[in-house]
């Protein structure tokens, strides 16, 4: 036990002495969390649209005002003599609303007046949102204009867990997990690869320390780093992102400790298997960054991944922890909703540790 702690203390001292690793460990996760969580949002507001009003009647002007009043769109001026599509091609607008001649007259007569909405669909998701928003504006316009026949069925839509539909609240837990999956294991793999590169690992082999003591000491040190990052990142989570703990916090706490163990073991495993710092960084950036970023449902739902590669996400440790964090901070499902995810995080961590131990043991002489 004492030897484990001595090993951890040595690792932590090494981290504190190097400014690069220290910033990497503490500042970068914070910066990433703040920057990326606000940058990767998909819900757009304030989109530029242009309007071509070929009718120019009171009715058409009212209709345009409805669009102007929404926070989703802002109407950009566009000369009448230029083709409206030109605005889309030159990226000056995302959509064009074209109101045909006789719009007001048709409306007054009780006919349905068609209105064309050209949407730049090069970004498919935004295009769908634009169509949804515009339909809603048109419906609201009919209601206020009193022209609507009473709808037989009315949909009353409630948004649970995130009533303001804030993207930040969805993305922040994801980036939080991404940062936790990247930096501790990056540092761990570097520390471990360095031992191999500088051949200091041989000193470990000839000392009386066992493989378990050596590995546990290292894992413990980087678990400390992970938990420090975790605590540091909780501050903006609770203040800037306005998240809190919903419901029972125990699964979250247990999962965090297990996840710290999991990422530290992954880093140690990579470092033990690849005794070269540059190559180890690449392996971690693939496992810690790319896999967790792509196949964990961080940004886009896992269900959208084609089935051919979706099965990989079953093994991606970040996936389970993201669900746990979101549950703890937004849904509050507690143990019934998350117990098996907590178990999976622990299981995957255990596998990483076992592989690291096997690689180490093979190199060590039998006593």
């Amino acid at each position, binding site marked *: 036990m004492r030897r484990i702690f001595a090993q951890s203390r040595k690792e932590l001292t090494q981290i504190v002495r190097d400014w690069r690793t220290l910033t990497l460990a503490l500042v970068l996760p914070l910066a990433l969390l703040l920057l990326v969580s606000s940058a990767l949002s998909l819900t757009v507001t304030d989109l530029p649209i242009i309007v071509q009003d070929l009718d120019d009647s009171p009715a058409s002007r009212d*209709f345009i005002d409805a669009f102007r009043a929404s926070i989703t769109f802002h109407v950009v001026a566009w000369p009448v003599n230029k083709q409206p599509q030109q605005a889309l091609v030159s*990226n000056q607008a995302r959509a064009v609303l074209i109101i045909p001649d006789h719009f007001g007259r048709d409306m*007054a007569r009780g006919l349905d007046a068609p209105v*064309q909405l050209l949407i730049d669909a090069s970004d*498919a*998701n935004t295009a769908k949102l634009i*169509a*949804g928003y515009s339909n809603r504006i048109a419906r609201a316009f009919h209601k206020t204009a009193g022209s609507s026949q009473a709808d037989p069925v009315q*949909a009353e839509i409630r948004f649970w867990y995130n009533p303001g539909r804030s993207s930040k609240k969805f993305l922040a837990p994801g980036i939080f997990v991404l940062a936790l999956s990247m930096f501790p294991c990056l540092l761990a793999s570097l520390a471990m690869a360095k031992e191999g590169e500088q051949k200091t690992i041989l000193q470990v082999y000839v000392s009386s320390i066992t493989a378990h003591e050596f590995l546990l000491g290292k894992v413990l040190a980087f678990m400390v780093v992970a938990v420090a990052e975790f605590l540091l990142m909780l501050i903006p989570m609770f203040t800037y992102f306005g998240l809190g703990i919903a419901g029972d916090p125990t699964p979250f706490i247990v999962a965090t400790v297990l996840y710290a163990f999991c990422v530290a073991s992954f880093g140690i495993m990579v470092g033990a298997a690849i005794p070269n710092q540059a190559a180890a960084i690449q392996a971690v950036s693939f496992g810690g960054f790319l896999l967790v970023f792509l196949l964990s449902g961080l940004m*886009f739902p896992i269900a959208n991944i084609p089935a051919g590669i979706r099965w990989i996400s079953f093994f991606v440790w970040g996936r389970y922890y993201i669900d746990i964090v979101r549950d703890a901070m937004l849904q509050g499902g507690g143990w019934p909703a998350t117990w098996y995810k907590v178990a999976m995080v622990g299981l995957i961590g255990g596998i990483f540790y076992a592989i690291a131990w096997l690689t180490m043991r093979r190199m060590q002489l039998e006593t």
Partner: protein
Amino acid sequence: MAPIFNYRVGALLGKEFGQIRRDRRLALVLILPPTLQLLLLGFALSATVTNIHLGAVDDSRTDESRQLVATLSESKSFRLVRYYVSIDRLGDAISRGEVDAGVVIPYDYDKDLQRGRTTTVQFLLNAINANTAAISQGYAEGVIESYNAGLRAGGLHASFEPIGAQDYSHQGQAQLHPAYLYNPGLKDSWFIVTGVLGMLLILNSCLVASAAMVKEREAGTMEQLLMSPAANSEIIIAKVVPLFVLLFMTAILGAAVMKLAFGVPFHGKLLLVLSAAALCILSGISIGTVNSTFAKSAGQAQLMAFFINPPLASTSGALSPVEAMPKWLQAFTVVNPIHHFAVIARGSMLKGSGFADLWPNFLGLLAITLVLGSVSVWRFRKQLS
């Protein structure tokens, strides 16, 4: 002033190309991962919302209510998972993640319909994912709207006759006809891959350049180069050209993957995209060179790349629309080469925009490349002297 490409540069170029030819791994590392990443990112990152798992609480239990649930689940957007006996059970199911959305039909649903009174159906959406929630809302409203239109037309229920429908003067409605230009199939991958190519070009140029620069220093052969009659600028040119050639091949390969694997149309001139890619590669190489002058070893250089690349990539609008970013972050996209590349690639490939439409982005990209290039030459010289 001697011509830029003289025999000294030629000799140095021969040396660099020879080194790359012997180092098979480098060429492999340069070509294979970007292609794989492009494929993986293009396929895996999709915001499409289909098959939303729907739970239903049907307090009415009539033909009418079942018909509404059927209409919802007939659309590709929703898939009925099961019925729940009470709204509490449904709430539990949403919290456990069993279903993503719930519909609650009141007990007097059919009676209200028959009497021509407006009846309210409640939708519960799990809004943790703000984007999915916004799109599901659109779907739900769309389905209800067409259901209403069916009811009014009397096609579904002849019994539905609004009381007093004739009383108020009927007024027409503006009917919005959306037309999706440039991507009528609404493929998410087109947006992603056009942005991701720029991201990968910058990322890889930066990594490869810093590795190549650091290697010379680590091996201690930098002094030999300095002692040769070649000028500093010639050393730099000879270092950059082979990397550029290799990376440009990656760009061409990326364009081929876009065309073959994702069916991205090439409406505009390919030359525009390729020249934007060339500028992107040059600025990436510059970033890598500057980065390498701060690092002592290959490991450190790669570590430093972590400080630069993730923030650069995520704030570029390559994966998410720029309009969704906070205003202060949007301002920074002007100095982000990935952003300009994404705009140019999307404009040219998907919309067929020409240089006349895209020149501001070219100007931006060129300015970034020139500034970064000068900084890298300055840092490199400082390190040499």
